[in-house]
Every structure is written in structure tokens, then in C-alpha cells.
């Protein structure tokens, strides 16, 4: 069964008198566990697409089924619950809360979901270890390097064991080597079963994904799959 099923999605922004079709006639199906890169010119609608997939935005028309459930008709709080349990976000600018430590940032989705402190501590400790942040637990974001910050953000995005991981230019603010490291981390998560969708400008990064979506003026112009046998280290 498809994890994501989009049918006839339109997203129109009104700018003065003009309508901007950020998404137009999108039909798309993504299976559980896929690794998808979305590419395209600036302004082609990639971020709008990702926001829609992450239930941060609603389409003007069309339906979105996530795990077989029509999520376009859910109330804001029901959508919040789906984001909490099923979706993780990784942002270009990390979006860490500056006054909270690395550990507290990672624990934030669990606090919001009302998970008991003992369970939170257990999961945070494991995540810190898994993401190589053991000795950075009590550091605030401004005491961390860019790569460390993004690793904290990824740990936070995955701490609730989501089915879907959405990353908008996750390496945009990182140097090449650190970017590779972060991508490698995301790919490892994908290999453990999480569906990974990355928006990127970087063709080298995009090429690593098993499936490439190319957008142009709000439309999907290309949807290609790499043969499954291809190796990941390119």
C-alpha cells in the first residue's frame, strides 16, 4: 500500500490580482520506505509540496491520503496529532530552540506529545548515542557546529519514530563534507525503513536518491527511478 497518495492537488496563492499556482494538478504516489529527491528551479513549488506533505499546509483542491487515511479533511488538532506521530521535519536552518540544550531540543516532540519524562530520558540518551552527540547533550545550539546542529535536528525529527521524514534543503547551510555526513545519516535512517523525501538544489545529492521528482511551475515534469542495483556511494 502506498504511504502517500496525492490526487489532483492544487495550491493557489493570491498575490494581489494574480493567482500563483504553486502546485498544479499533482498526482503522486510514494510507497513506504522510498527515498525520494524533489528537484527543480527556485519557485517551482518544492517547499510548497513538502509543506503539504507535512500537513503544514492544505491544498485548495485535491485529496491527500497518508497511510490510507484522507488527511485533507482533518481538523487542525487532528493534523497536529498526525505530525506528532507520523512525520518528522528537517529544515535548512535547523530551527533549534536557542535556549534549550541539545538534549532538550531532541526531547521537545516527546514533551509536546505528553510522553512521560522517564521514557523521554531513555529515548534521548539513545538518540544522543546513535547520532554521536553523547558529549554535547547539555550544549545549547550556539555552542554546536552546523553539522552537530543538524544532527540534533535529525535526532529530534526521528525521536517519535515517524513513518515519513521530510527534509527541505537539509545541507543548504552546511559545507560539503558536513553535508555529506548529514545526507549519509538520513540515508541510514531510510535504510532502516523511514520514508525519506529530500528537497535539494544539489544534483549530486539528488542523484543519490532512488527516485527523482522534478518540478517546474508547480507541475511534476519528471518522475524517474534509478535501477535498484545502483550503488549508493556514487
Amino acid at each position, binding site marked *: 500500500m502506498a504511504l502517500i497518495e496525492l490526487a489532483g492537488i492544487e495550491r493557489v496563492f493570491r498575490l494581489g490580482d494574480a493567482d500563483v499556482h504553486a502546485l498544479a494538478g499533482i498526482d503522486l504516489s510514494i510507497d513506504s520506505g522510498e527515498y525520494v529527491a524533489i528537484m527543480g528551479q527556485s519557485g517551482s513549488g518544492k517547499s510548497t509540496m513538502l*509543506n503539504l506533505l*507535512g500537513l*503544514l*499546509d492544505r491544498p485548495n483542491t485535491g485529496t491527500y491520503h497518508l497511510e490510507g487515511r484522507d488527511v485533507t479533511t482533518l481538523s*487542525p*488538532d487532528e493534523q*497536529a*496529532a*498526525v*505530525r*506528532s*506521530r507520523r512525520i518528522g*521535519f528537517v*529544515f535548512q*536552518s535547523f*530551527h533549534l*530552540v*536557542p*535556549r*534549550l540544550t541539545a538534549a532538550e531540543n531532541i526531547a*521537545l*516532540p516527546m*514533551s*509536546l*506529545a*505528553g510522553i512521560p519524562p522517564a521514557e523521554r530520558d531513555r529515548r534521548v540518551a539513545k538518540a544522543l548515542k546513535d547520532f554521536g552527540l553523547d558529549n554535547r547533550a547539555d550544549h545549547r545550539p550556539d555552542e554546536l557546529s552546523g553539522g552537530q546542529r543538524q544532527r540534533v535536528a535529525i535526532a*529530534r525529527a526521528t525521536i*517519535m519514530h515517524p513513518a515519513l521524514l521530510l527534509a527541505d534543503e537539509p545541507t543548504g547551510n552546511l559545507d560539503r563534507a558536513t553535508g555529506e555526513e548529514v545526507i549519509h545519516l538520513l540515508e541510514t535512517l531510510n535504510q532502516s525503513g523511514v520514508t525519506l523525501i529530500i528537497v535539494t538544489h544539489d544534483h549530486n545529492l539528488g542523484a543519490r536518491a532512488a527516485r527523482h521528482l522534478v518540478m517546474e511551475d508547480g507541475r511534476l515534469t519528471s518522475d524517474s527511478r534509478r535501477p535498484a542495483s545502483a550503488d549508493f556511494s556514487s
Partner: protein
Amino acid sequence: MRTRDVLRFARDAGAGYPLRTSLSILAMAIGVAAVVVLTALGDGARRYVVAQFTSLGTNLVIVIPGRTATGGFNPANTITRTPRDLTVEDAAAVLRLPGVQRASPLAAGNSEISVGGRLREVLAIGVAQPYVEIRNFQLQQGTFIPDMDWSRTLPVAVIGAKLREELFPGQAAVGQFMRVGDRRVRIIGVLKPSGQGLGMNTDELVFLPVALAQALFDSNTLFRILVEARSRNHIEGVKQEVATLLKARHGGEEDVTVITQDAMLATFDKLLRALTAAVAGIAAISLAVAGILVMNVMLVAVTQRTGEIGLLKALGAEARTIRHAFLAEAGMLSLFGAIAGYLLGQLATFALRQAYPAYPAYAPDWAVAAALVTALTTGLLFGIMPAQRAARMDPVQALMKH
């Protein structure tokens, strides 16, 4: 989100902006402290006046020459000129009334005293023996004016403690002679210091037998008749009896005013309570101002943390959670402000009491409670709007602001 986590999140958020947070806490604290201090001053004035009145004696009924239309107590009466003399005989007649426990005539006038060439202007009070019991005075040395015929001009005097120190420093006063006006009197007693008594400092008075004082002032009239009713229940009856008696004695003319200590006390009490409530109201305005400041601070916080609000939504926070987090922050600003203001106010009133021990500057409990409750409710009330604004924010728009 668990309540404890909401509170911790709000606390950390407030602590993240120490200057802004401490300024709004300070504003709230000043508001609460203002209520505490101002009502302490107002209620202190009330307690002070009540204490002064009570020190006059208990179950008191006071006869004042002159008549007011309403018969109620009016401070202006106390200086009304006498239309018809109030006499020692009137006082003696009052003493014979059934509900009366004690009564004393009271004549007052300025007089010059001299001891060993030292001259001093004093207020001389002519009274009878019951006066010492009515006023509940204690003697330091000697005895009070003896129980005798009120028309006797026995040349004796009882002086206040301060006067004794001035006139007879370091020596016994009892048994000494002094000159009062043109009379030579023997000092038979010294009062213990009290300092009480509505304007007249008893420590600086000279007490003489009433007839002697009247002879000295060359006047037959009394300044007051002080009456002590047998009990609290007798006060109203005695008041009526005295009024009827004196009307009869004065040829059917109602030319005296009979007031009860209770009535005076009640009037002043009411007046000063109203004053305290009024200053509390004025001080409460500063609490409203502080509430608006909290709202302002929270609006700034919402704008400043827009990106964070977007993030919280992306991480699955419900609108309710975000509203609660911001409300909790506003509530904490108010709470800490209220606590700080309470402590500040208590400290200030403590300092006041240290500086003026006679002045009981204690904030009434109702004022303290009202200040704290008002601080919290204004803080929360003014916190609702910013919290709503945060909760309603569009997550995509919010995330773009970073």
C-alpha cells in the same frame, strides 16, 4: 503536553529574555507594593485614630457645651463656643444618674507655671477624682486629686511625666511646690508617661481640682463632662438620660451635645476605611498598567518567537498547547511580580513601622489579597490576546520567520 512540561517550557522561555522578563516583573511588583504600602498607610491612620480614641477610656459618653443640628459627631463641635455654661453642678447631677458609673467635670485653659524661677506655659486641666479611673491613668509617683467635694479649691496638682522631667530634673517632684497662675500648689502625683489622647499630650499637662482650675481661669463653665457608662449596653441609655437631664437643668433648652465614644469611633472608622479603599483603588490602577505591560511584553515575545511557534506546530503541538505555554508565561510574570511586590510592600511597611513606631502601618489582609488576585488576573487576562495570536499562527508563515 503535560502541565509540568508546559510550566517548565514557559519558565525557560521567560528566563531566555532576562531583561524583558525582569522589567515586567518589576512593573507588576511595583503595582502590588503600591497597594500594600498605600493601604497600610490608610489603615494605619485608622488604627492610630481608633487607638487614640480607645485610650480616652471605655464606655465613654462626652458632654460638650453647644448644640449641633444633627446631634451627630462633627469635629467642628469641639471648638464651638458655649451658649450656656456647662457647670460643675451639671456634672454632679449627671453622676447621680442610674446608668452612670463615673463622671468627671473637665475645665481647661492655658496657664503659666513656675518652679524655682523657671517659667513655662502649660495646658491646665481641672478635673475631679473619677477622671483618673475614667481615663485609666497610671501614676508614677504619689496620688491623684483626692475624692472630695468638687467645689473645694484644694491647692494641689498632678503633673505629666514629661513636665516632671523638665521642671524637676533628677529629683522627686511629689511634695514640691510650684506656682500655677497666681496660686501656689503642692504637687501630689506624677502620671506615668502615655503620650496618648487626641492632640493633647497628657505628659505635658497639669491636673488641678476642678474648682481650683475654674478659679484660676475665672470662669464657671466646663470644657467637657466625661461620663463612663456602667457597661457597653448602658451607653445609649446614658446618652439619652444625660441629654434629658441637662435639657431640664438648662430650662428646657437643648444647648449641649452628648456624643458617645462609639459614635465618634464609628465615624472616623468609616471615614478612614473609605480613604483606605480609595487609595487601594488608585494603587490598583498601577496594577492595570502593569497588566498592559505584561500584554505588551507577551506580544513582543510572540513576534520574536514566531519561528519557534512554527516549529512547535511542525513538531505536532496543538493550538491549545501553544496557547497554554504563552498564558503560563504571562501568568508567571504576574505571579513572580505579585510575590516580589508583596515582599517589597511588607519590607516597606516594616521600615515604616520601624521609623514611626506609634503608627501601625499594617496592610489590611483584604488589600493584600485583592492586590495579589488583581495582579494575577490582569496578567492572565492581558496574556490571553497574545496567546491566542500565537496559537492561531499559520505554521508555514511562522516557520519562514527565523
